[in-house]
């Protein structure tokens, strides 16, 4: 399902003294099946943009196209529910959405709302509890008795159990421990590959964007200032710095190395593996910084 935003603008609290324009003339295309990372400084409008992707916010200007559906200022609330089944959103700090008496029921909430049979919803819930590495017996526990990290996993399971075609993630791992972060990010990537799911990730981690994404959108002051594959986006560190963004650690290391060795800047190494290969190749040639 292709998603496209055409000249989208959004103003919070329009017509009041608190009015605040969060998006200006945003033109974005997210191809079906892509893994798109959205980066941008805090307050640049990333979360606002995300909420347009399943009709939680309707643009105050322009058009949002989600598959065959168009959302504009005039679109009625009723037309949005089918979109929400196809586009699942994991919000910033999703553990705040838990409410049921036990984990199983909470995960079943989404699927049941979208008309999945009780039996099937339960099977899915159990499957996702396991998939997210939650300890045995979690299903019967109250979500409020879990640790912060476990609550986060339950909340994520609640969205995944809807089995959406498009998965939208707003900083899904903020505040988790490093091992947990990697586990969850790897899980999302696996799902992306296996299910051919379109994945959209908002992140402050340039490393995550570089490692997982095949397409990137850079936001600055409510505008989309750059789009392209990570290799292009991270090639120009100076331009990113203008938007108060950095490059992944691997790229900064690579640039230092190149400078020391007197090499011209090559294509950015997006992962540790690529960096290692690059260094091995260069050192193998007998070059290298002394």
């Amino acid at each position: 399902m292709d998603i496209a935003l055409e000249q989208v603008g959004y103003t919070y609290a329009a017509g009041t003294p608190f009015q605040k324009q969060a998006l200006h003339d945003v033109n974005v295309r997210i191809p079906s099946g892509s893994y798109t990372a959205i980066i941008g400084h805090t307050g640049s409008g990333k979360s606002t943009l995300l909420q347009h992707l399943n009709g939680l916010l309707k643009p105050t200007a322009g058009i949002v196209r989600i598959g065959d559906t168009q959302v504009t200022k005039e679109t009625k609330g009723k037309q949005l529910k089918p979109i929400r089944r196809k586009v699942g959103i994991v919000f910033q700090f999703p553990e705040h959405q838990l409410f049921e008496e036990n984990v199983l029921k909470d995960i079943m909430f989404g699927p049941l709302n979208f008309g999945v049979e009780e039996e099937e919803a339960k099977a899915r819930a159990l499957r996702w509890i396991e998939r997210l590495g939650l300890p045995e017996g979690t299903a019967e526990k109250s979500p409020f008795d879990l640790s912060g990290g476990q609550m986060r996993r339950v909340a994520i399971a609640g969205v995944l159990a809807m089995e959406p075609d498009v998965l939208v993630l707003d900083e899904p791992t903020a505040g988790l421990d490093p091992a947990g972060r990697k586990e969850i990010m790897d899980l999302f990537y696996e799902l992306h590959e296996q299910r051919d799911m379109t994945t959209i990730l908002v992140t402050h981690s340039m490393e995550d964007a570089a490692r997982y994404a095949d397409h990137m959108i850079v936001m600055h002051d409510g505008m989309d200032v750059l789009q392209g594959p990570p290799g292009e986006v991270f090639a120009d560190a100076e331009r990113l710095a203008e938007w108060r963004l950095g490059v992944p650690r691997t790229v900064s290391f690579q640039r230092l190395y190149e400078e020391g060795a007197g090499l011209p800047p090559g294509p950015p190494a997006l992962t540790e593996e690529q960096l290692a290969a690059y260094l091995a190749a260069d050192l193998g040639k007998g070059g290298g910084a002394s």
Partner: protein
Amino acid sequence: MMEKMVFGRYIPGDSFVHRLDPRSKLIFVFIFIAAVFLANNTVSYALLLAFTLLSILASKVRIGFLIGGLKPVMFLIAFTFLLHIFFTKEGDLLFQLGFLKIYEEGLRQGIYISIRFLVLVLMTSLLTLTTSPISITDGLEVLLNPLKKVKFPVHELALMMSISLRFIPTLMDETDKILKAQLARGSDISSGTMKERIQAVVPLLVPLFVSAFKRAEDLAVAMEVRGYRGGEGRTRYRQLKWDWRDTTALLILLAVIVALWFLRG
């Protein structure tokens, strides 16, 4: 979705009304509320309405914004208006449609009551729109101070008030966030039968309560580690200052009351 709410919001500014001492504003609003009930004929209600509009002008708050924020209250006003129109059966018959009969007196009462409601809501909104929650509670605490003699917990009350006022916007934002999270999971508050709608509120209320309690706990801990020991011997950082504006405002109100007294039938 909640962002249009006016009630409990504060818009910083520099108008005559903004610069009044919170004490005079509080006294003003309380006396005004009582004075509203003096009005009982067309001239006196007109005076009330005019005075309210003047106060709004003096505060430089945009009237459109105020009216826009009144929508939830408008429903209540419309309801009482209709009640009066249909259930007062005095005066001349003005209009008849089937079993519906509208009498002159009903229409008059309906309009009066609506004006009364409107000016009350406008004036109290004006108070909260032009006075920061902190000043309101400071003012209230000072005004209620004499009650300490009879062991009334003035400081605690003021603290409770300032905390709740402080957290209204936070809770609204939170409601908005949770609402969106549940909408994204297919919950639907705006359609379905009454029973379904009530059930749809649960996924909203539970997380809201949970987070409110968490916040309360955090706040209590934060206050305690910073040495909060209640009101005993506490001094103030912000000093309240009564100046000519405050006296003027209250004198004008007095004049209005006197006028109301003479104009009422």
